[in-house]
């Protein structure tokens, strides 16, 4: 019997359930890693350059940077490295698929679509972490920071990366034109960097803008990150976790809805 005969005759009825999900997830993660394998070193190196670049470059704005600013900057840059991966890289790669015409094939694979999102999230995390660590190491070397790392860094990183990745993923799939997606995500990054208290303390913003940020996730991403990396720098960490968790859930729901849609 040839492999083909074996294959068609054993074609199972439609698979479903948790086992199928996990198996598909494992397979799609392998696919994503294999697909990025050649680019992976470059992307990770780039992440390190971006993280280190922000940590050092923004220091140049100051004649001599006060320690409080240096702490806000360094812990903020850790958040920035996570956000940029989720919001920029995902849309970029999905955009490439659309331009190259491989998008339909990926969506025709017989796996639950949520496994593709989950695989993408896994790969994103692998890509983002070295950049984040490098940014902190470089910042610590440059500014000699009094960092106190606690276990709460794990949920902080997880919530931030899930939210950013799923929002980027949803944009990339929901908007047909890659150019438009790219523009939106770049504007978003620009706005987040400029107008959210991530790399600088909230009191530098006008009061209305600081309050507005309490309703958005970015201030809270930075807050939980700072709580995990320093002592006594920030307050209201509990609230930040609550708000951020709500955003995380919303982003996962959004991404799930987007990938399940059909025209």
């Amino acid at each position, binding site marked *: 019997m040839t492999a083909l005969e074996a294959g068609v005759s054993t*074609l199972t009825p*439609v698979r479903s359930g948790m086992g199928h999900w996990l198996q598909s997830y494992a397979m799609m993660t392998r696919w994503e890693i*294999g*697909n990025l394998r050649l680019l992976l070193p470059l992307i990770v190196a780039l992440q390190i350059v971006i993280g280190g670049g922000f940590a050092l470059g923004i220091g140049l704005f100051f004649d001599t940077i006060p320690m409080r600013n240096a702490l806000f900057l360094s812990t903020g840059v850790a958040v920035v490295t996570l956000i940029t991966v989720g919001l920029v890289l995902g849309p970029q790669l999905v955009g490439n698929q659309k331009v*190259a015409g491989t998008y339909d094939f990926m969506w*025709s694979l*017989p796996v639950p679509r949520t496994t593709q999102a989950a695989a993408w999230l896994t790969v994103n995390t692998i890509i983002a972490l070295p950049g984040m660590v490098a940014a902190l190491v470089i910042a610590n070397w440059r500014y000699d920071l009094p960092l106190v790392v606690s276990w709460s860094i794990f949920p902080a990183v997880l919530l931030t990366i899930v939210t950013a990745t799923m929002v980027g993923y949803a944009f990339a799939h929901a908007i047909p034109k890659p150019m438009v997606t790219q523009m939106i995500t770049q504007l978003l990054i620009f706005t987040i960097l400029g107008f959210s208290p991530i790399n600088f303390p909230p009191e530098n913003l006008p009061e209305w803008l600081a309050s507005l940020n309490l309703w958005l996730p970015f201030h809270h991403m930075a807050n939980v990150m700072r709580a995990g990396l320093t002592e006594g720098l920030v307050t209201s960490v509990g609230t930040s976790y609550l708000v951020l968790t709500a955003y995380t859930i919303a982003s996962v729901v959004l991404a799930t809805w987007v990938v399940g849609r059909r025209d």
Partner: protein
Amino acid sequence: MTDSTAADWTFRAANVTKTFGDLRANDAVTLEIRPGEVYGLLGPNGAGKTTLVKQVIGLLKPTSGSLTLGPYDLVDDPDAARQLCSYLPQAQMPIDSFKARQVIVLTGMIRGGDAAAVRKRADELIEELDIGEWSETLGTRLSGGVKRLVGFAMVTAWPGRVVILDEPTNDVDPRRRRLLWQQIRRLGDQGSSVLLVTHNVLEAEKSVDRLAIINDGRLIAEGTPSSLKSEDRGRMRLQLMVVPGRPTPEMPVFVENHTRVGNNVMTVIAETDSAHGIGWAQELVGLGVIEEYALAATTLEDVYIRLTGHTSEDPTAEALA
């Protein structure tokens, strides 16, 4: 749920209509493909072939109508649709960063095969498509034709009940094209239904069991290649190569219809008029109106031209003629 081998795995599209705004990309398309059948879907660009296929695989949702495969409703259950149908799109495949054999195996496993069986099947395909010398080559370094064959192997390493192939032979060299057709035939022999999308009429004629011609979103003919040609039975094709720059010669009464593509005029005449036709053509050669002529049996291409109203080559041809 019945036993999968005993179930009737006929694919049925019933009154499938898909509109984008005012455009009716598919208009009440109804067709049926039995297990083991190689079914051709022919039509000019923009006829609605790819739109139909995307609805089968669950990438688009029909505006109305139903798509079923055996006991499964493919519209309601796109997850099942993707598991039951393999799809080779006409566009590029995402294989740039993979080695050929690796991506065939991985896709087979994603399609639900277990590792050992998929590896065996991948090696079989690689050998039978004669792409062994590239099995460890990265996708970026493959030529268009080899990429196409790798793509075919990816989606058929663990084939679905329905295998949808959109222009599978594009860019493939003639020898491997024959190997590819053998593999397509074998998919059918093993019980998969093959839905073959193409605008290469001559190739399709030799390879499909049945076919449908789709134009402007509507199915305008369906049947076996010979049943579609039956209307043309007893007719011949007289082809005239007009001297460049000369107008199309006036048609005598026995010419039933004609189409001009470039300097090529295709006429259809009754077999019994063959002698008249040759006489007329020789006269035209003598007058210097045409350079040469050829008389041959009609092919599916003639049916296709007659049915779609224009040739697939050049939509302006008729206006000039």
